[in-house]
């Protein structure tokens, strides 16, 4: 009876992995549509509305178009790296989901199943390490294309990513000090507690404990996912397209998917660190059963992540691009010292709190 018990162990994990893959990739496809629709709204246009009702089948049409386009590899390109680069960008972006808890436990056939693919103790570090890997896709694309615009894009991206990876890590150190754990599930569980102010219960979300840390993390997250106002690696009106100038058909689509998947990861992380993850405030009082509450929690997690995705799109169509020196100045002279100050202040506050309470 080894095989059935092994299957019983593996089945929930496989279901969760396939589920997460399906949801994320579908969301990625529809995010491109959302981006076009919202940008149209912001610029007072209509946006794509030809394919299907309200243009809802547009991502499908785009995908089919990409697959049937001719796959061109420039003769002077380094073939292996050229082909490897889009995968190296997309895979790390997808790997990030492995540790993000998207819901509480559900009870299926008498077993408690956590709504998270892998519950690892070093969740934060894993996420940061994986986020840092995507830069190899960009630099490899820039290098292998054998094109000066691509190379400049790759160069910019490696400088930008290294700078902002540092601030990304440093800006959550404050939150880490407060929570005292690197386990993402523990972090969310700690945020489900409340402060009592008079008769009002305020949820202990990270954003109230670490407002500065949240802002710095938000800025760094925008820079890490190469989105406006930090999209210098591709900067289409100075670098033609940056690192993906020489890419076409499905390979180009993979770069696109990598960017949007990265956005979803960062939004999910912002939700997990600073907005209580799956936590629905004041729901405990309703006394719902475990499964119903967990499903509502998953909904809340998706809704919060969606809000950040909207913010991403909103900012892109509102703010102009930074100049390169401004970008570096912001990182090293703005965000970095502030993040250090945040760590210091948090440490002092925690010490005083532990002394006084």
């Amino acid at each position, binding site marked *: 009876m080894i095989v059935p018990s092994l299957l019983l162990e593996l089945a929930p994990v496989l279901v969760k992995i396939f589920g997460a893959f399906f949801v994320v990739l579908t969301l990625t496809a529809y995010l491109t549509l959302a981006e076009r629709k919202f940008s149209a709204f912001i610029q007072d246009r209509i946006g794509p509305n030809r394919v299907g009702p309200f243009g809802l089948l547009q991502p499908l049409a785009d995908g089919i178009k990409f697959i049937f386009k001719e796959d061109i590899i420039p003769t002077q390109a380094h073939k292996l790296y050229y082909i490897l680069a889009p995968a190296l960008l997309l895979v790390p972006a997808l790997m990030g989901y492995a540790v993000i808890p998207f819901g509480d436990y559900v009870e299926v056939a008498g077993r408690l199943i956590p709504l998270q693919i892998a519950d690892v103790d070093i969740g934060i570090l894993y996420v940061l390490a994986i986020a840092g890997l995507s*830069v190899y896709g960009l*630099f490899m694309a820039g290098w292998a294309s054998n094109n000066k615009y691509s190379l400049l894009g790759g160069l910019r991206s490696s400088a930008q990513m290294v700078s902002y*990876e540092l601030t990304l890590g440093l800006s959550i150190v404050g939150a880490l000090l407060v929570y005292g754990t690197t386990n993402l599930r523990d972090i969310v569980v700690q945020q489900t507690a409340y402060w009592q102010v008079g008769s009002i219960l305020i949820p202990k979300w990270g954003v109230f404990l670490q407002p500065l840390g949240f802002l710095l993390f938000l800025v760094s997250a925008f820079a890490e996912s190469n989105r406006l106002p930090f999209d210098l690696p591709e900067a289409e009106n100075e670098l033609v397209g940056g690192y993906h100038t020489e890419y076409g058909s499905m390979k180009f689509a993979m770069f696109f998917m990598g960017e949007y998947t990265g956005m979803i990861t960062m939004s999910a992380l912002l939700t997990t660190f600073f907005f209580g993850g799956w936590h629905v405030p004041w729901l405990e009082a309703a006394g719902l059963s475990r499964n119903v509450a967990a499903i509502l929690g998953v909904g809340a997690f998706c809704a919060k992540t969606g809000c950040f995705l909207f913010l991403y799109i909103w900012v892109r169509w509102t703010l102009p691009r930074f100049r390169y020196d401004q970008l570096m100045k912001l990182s090293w002279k703005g965000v970095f010292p502030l993040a250090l100050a945040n760590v210091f202040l948090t440490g002092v506050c925690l010490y005083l709190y532990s002394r006084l309470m």
Partner: protein
Amino acid sequence: MSAEKVAFFILSGLTLGGGLAILFSVRLMRAVVYLLVSLFGVAGLYILLNAEFLAALQVLIYIGGITILMVFGLMLTGPGQFVNPAESRLKAVAAGVSSLTTAIVLLLIVKKTKWPAGTQALAGDTTAEIGRLLLTDHVFAFEIASVLLLVVLVGVALFVRLARDGGKP
């Protein structure tokens, strides 16, 4: 052979094979890619030893940080400007002597040191324990490393300033 052993051989193969490939590659950009393979192998070995924290740091610092800086330097300077060691016999001899000395010193260190090895995995979260050890038992080494990094930082700033002001400090 247990699954653990298979994983160990694959990972150490990646580590050592990557290292050898670096030695024998003439093009620097390829050497960097082989370095990545080797570093990933080491990270995998850490995971095999239940040291997830070290594995994450390995990926975060060495793969995500230091190697990227190497790539950055390579992109700025271009592969053509480096000296091929095979061109100069003196350089080849000097390189041979220095790497042989390093190898002997490393071997002696590995042989002579009494490693506090345990066969049991630490229970639970290793992160807190590593943090405690770094700030208590090994605080001296920790501080020395920070001072060294600070010296490097100041030195680089000085060099850049020298180059910018045309050799005058």
